[in-house]
C-alpha cells in the first residue's frame, strides 16, 4: 500500500458559466520516502489535486464530486471533519507557492512556529522556542535565534520560503506537499531551496509530492512524475522514463518547446498549437486531440477514434499513458544533442 493514494478524484467548481471540472478523475500514488513530481501547465488541476489531499478546497464554490484520497489507507475525503486537524500538519504538511502571503504578517516568525508546536505537541514556551530555532537552522537560516523575533516582512522571499518549509517540517510529517514552492523565487534561490528540500527529505525519509510547471525542477528533484493535462493525468512514470522516452504527445511537445542549451539560437521553437479545452464541457474524446500534432499524422479512422473515445490512464504499469496511440518507446524526446 502506498503512503498516499488518490483514486479517480473529481473536484468541481461552481461558476456562473457552469460546473468547472478542474480535476476529473485523477489517480496517483506517492510511495514512502519517494518524491513524486506533478507537472502540468496552468489550469490543469495540479494545485486543486494538492489541496484536495488536505481537503482544503474552498467550499463554495469547490465541491468534491467523487473519488478518494487515501492516506495510509484512510480516506481523507470521507473522514469526519474533526479528524482533519490530526492529519493536517502532523501527517501531511504543505508548502505553498507564495511565501509572501502564507505567513501571518502580524505575528513574529517565532510566534507562528511556536503555535504549531503548541497545538501539535503541547510544547511549553521555552522548549518550543528551542525546537523552532533548531528547525530554522536546519533549513539554512543563519542567526536563527534572532530571526524568531522578526516579522515576516523583515525577511526576504527565499528566507520566508525556508520558514514555511521549517514550519511544515516541524511536526515531522510523513508527506510533504510542495505546491510550486520555488516559482516565486529567483533561480539561485530556487537552487538553494531545491537543494534544501532534497537534503531534508534524505534525512527524514519524508515522502514529497512536488507540484510545479517547470520541467527542469522535475528533472532536478523527482523520482517519479505524473503529467497532468486538462484535469487528467495523461502520463506517469519514473522521471528518467518520462523525460527520455515520453509516450504522450503532450509530454513530448512540452519537452520539445523548452529551449535547451545547444539549441540553435534564434531558430523557431517547437510549440503546441491551440488552447486548453473548456473544463465545463470537455470534449468527448481525448482532451488533447485538438492540439495533438501526432494525431494529424494518423489516418482518418484512427484520428476519429482520438476524438470520439476518451483514452483512460491504465491503473497500473511502470509507465502508463492515456493515449490511444502512444509514441514509440525508445525514441528520445526533445532536440538535445
Amino acid at each position, binding site marked *: 500500500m502506498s503512503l498516499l493514494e488518490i483514486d479517480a478524484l473529481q473536484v468541481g467548481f461552481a461558476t*456562473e458559466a457552469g460546473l468547472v471540472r478542474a480535476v476529473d478523475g485523477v489517480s496517483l500514488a506517492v510511495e514512502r520516502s519517494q518524491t513524486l513530481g506533478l507537472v502540468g501547465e496552468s489550469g490543469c488541476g495540479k494545485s486543486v489535486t494538492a489541496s484536495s489531499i488536505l*481537503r*482544503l478546497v*474552498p*467550499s*463554495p*464554490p*469547490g465541491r468534491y464530486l467523487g473519488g478518494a484520497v487515501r492516506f495510509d489507507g484512510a480516506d481523507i475525503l470521507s473522514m469526519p*471533519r474533526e479528524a*482533519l486537524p490530526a492529519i493536517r500538519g502532523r501527517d501531511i504538511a504543505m508548502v505553498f507557492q507564495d511565501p509572501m502571503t502564507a505567513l501571518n504578517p502580524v505575528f513574529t516568525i517565532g510566534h507562528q512556529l511556536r503555535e504549531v508546536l503548541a497545538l501539535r505537541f503541547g510544547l511549553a514556551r521555552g522548549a518550543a522556542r528551542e525546537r523552532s530555532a533548531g528547525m530554522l537552522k536546519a533549513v539554512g537560516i543563519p542567526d536563527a535565534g534572532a530571526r524568531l523575533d522578526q516579522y515576516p516582512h523583515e525577511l526576504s522571499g527565499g528566507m520566508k520560503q525556508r520558514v514555511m518549509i521549517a514550519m511544515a517540517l516541524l511536526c515531522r510529517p510523513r508527506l510533504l506537499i510542495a505546491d510550486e514552492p520555488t516559482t516565486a523565487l529567483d533561480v539561485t534561490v530556487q537552487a538553494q531551496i531545491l537543494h534544501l528540500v532534497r537534503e531534508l527529505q534524505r534525512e527524514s525519509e519524508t515522502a514529497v509530492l512536488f507540484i510545479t510547471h517547470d520541467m527542469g525542477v522535475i528533472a532536478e528533484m523527482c523520482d517519479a512524475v505524473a503529467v497532468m493535462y486538462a484535469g487528467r493525468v495523461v502520463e506517469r512514470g519514473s522521471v528518467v522514463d518520462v523525460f527520455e522516452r515520453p509516450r504522450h504527445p503532450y509530454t513530448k511537445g512540452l519537452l520539445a518547446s523548452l529551449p535547451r542549451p545547444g539549441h540553435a539560437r534564434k531558430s523557431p521553437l517547437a510549440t503546441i498549437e491551440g488552447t486548453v479545452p473548456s473544463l465545463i464541457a470537455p470534449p468527448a474524446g481525448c482532451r488533447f486531440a485538438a492540439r495533438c500534432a501526432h494525431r494529424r499524422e494518423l489516418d482518418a479512422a484512427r484520428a476519429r477514434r482520438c476524438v470520439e473515445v476518451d483514452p483512460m490512464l491504465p491503473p497500473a504499469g511502470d509507465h502508463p499513458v492515456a493515449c490511444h496511440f502512444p509514441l514509440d518507446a525508445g525514441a528520445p524526446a526533445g532536440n538535445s544533442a
Partner: protein
Amino acid sequence: MRWPRLDPITRRRLQRFRRIRRGYYALVILLAAMVLAVFAPYLAESRAIAVWYRGTLYLPTFQYYPMRTFGQAPPAGWDSADIEADYYRLQREWGTERILYARGHSAAGADPAALAALAAKYPDRDDYVVMPPIPWNPYQSDFWANEILNDIQQALDAGHRDDAEWLALRDGLGELAAAIRSGRIDTLLAAGKGHPKRTLGDLARTGAMVSLAGLGTSPPNAPDLRRRHYLGTDSQGRDVAARLLYGFRISIFFALFLVLTGQVIGTIVGSLQGYLGGRFDLVSQRLIEVLIAVPFLYVVIVIAALFQPTFWLLIAILSLFQWIAITFFMRTEMYREKTREYCLAAKSYGASHFRIVFRHLLPNCLTPLVTFTPFAVVGAIFALTGLDYLGYGLPAPTPSWGELIGQALQASNRDKLWLTLAPFGALTITLVLVVFIGESVREAFDPKPYARYE
C-alpha cells in the same frame, strides 16, 4: 460610427444584476416611482386636469381661471375675480346639482313647466370636472371636518334646512343629508338626560352617526375616502398622501443630485490622489482629515442661520461632505489600478495623464463608485429627512417626510396612526428598495461567494 459595445465585465455585471431578482425588481419599482413622481402634478393637485363648463373645455393646468369663470361663489371677503377656482368644490357642487336635479326630475313627472323650472334651477348639472387622483396639493390646509360641520351647523341653527342639506350633499355626507331631510337630525341633536344639546361635532366625535364617526373636528383627520384624503390629513389639515408624494419627489431628486455632485467631485479628487500620489495625495489627504473632523450638522445649522436653506443650498452644503467617502475608495482603487501594466503601456506610447486617468483607469475603478452609490442615496435621503425633522432642512411648508415624521412623533399625535404609518412606511419602503438595489449591485460586482475552508 458603430455603437460602443459594452465591455464583457460590465455586460457580465449587468447580467448578474438582472438575475438577482430582488434587486432588479426593486430598481424597476423605484424607477417607476421616480417617473411617477416627476408627474406628481397630475397625481396630486388641487387644479383640475380638465373642466367642461357650459359647452367649453377648460384646461386649468395651463391657464389660471378665477372663480368667476365658473360662477363659483368665493369665500367670505374674497373677490371671485381674484382667487383661483376651487375645482374640487366645483366638482362636488355640480355633482350635488345632478343629484338634486334627478330627485326633482322624478318628482316633477311629466310636467313640462316644472321640468323647465328645474332645468333653470340647476344649470350646471351637465358640467364636469376631471380631478387628479388626489385632488389636493401638498400646501393647502383642508379644515373640512371642522368647517363643513360648522357651516352645516350654522345653517341648521338658522333654520335653513335646505342649505344644510345641500351642504351635506355637496360634501358627500349622504347620511347626514338624509337625516336633515327626514328630520331625524333633531332627535340626534336633542338635549338628553345628563347632556346638553349636541352639536354635529359631538355626533362626529362620539360616533352617534356612523358616517360621521372618526371624523375629528380638528386636524389631523383620519383617512377619509369621501373627501379623498386617502392617507388622512396632517396637523395642519394638509393631505398626507400629497405631501408624501411631493416629499418623495424632493427627497429622491435631492438624493440623486447630491450623490451625483458628491460622487463626481469625490471621483475626481480620489482619482487624482491615487494617480498623482506624492505631495498632492499627502496634502489633500490632510485637508480631507480636517474636513472629516468638522461636525456637519453644526455647519448646516450655522449656515441655515445665515441663509435661507434652499434645495440647492442644502445640496451645496451636503456636497461639501458627501464627496469625501468615495475619495478613499477611488484613491485606493487608483493606487492599485495604476500599477497595472496597461497603464504603463499607455504611458509608453505617450498617452497624456488625462487620457490615462479618464480613458484607461477610471472605467476600471468604477466598482466602488457604482456599488456605493445606492447606499449613498440612502444616506442622502436620511440626511434630508433628518434635517427636515430637526427643522434645518427645506423651509416650511415644503412637503417633506422628515417634517411628517416630526408631526407623527409629537406626543399629541401619538394615537394618529395614519400620521405615523404613512411617512415611516414610505421611508421604510424606499430604503428597503434602495438597499435591495445596493445589495444586488454589490453582489453583481463582486460575485465572490461566501467560501470557507473545512
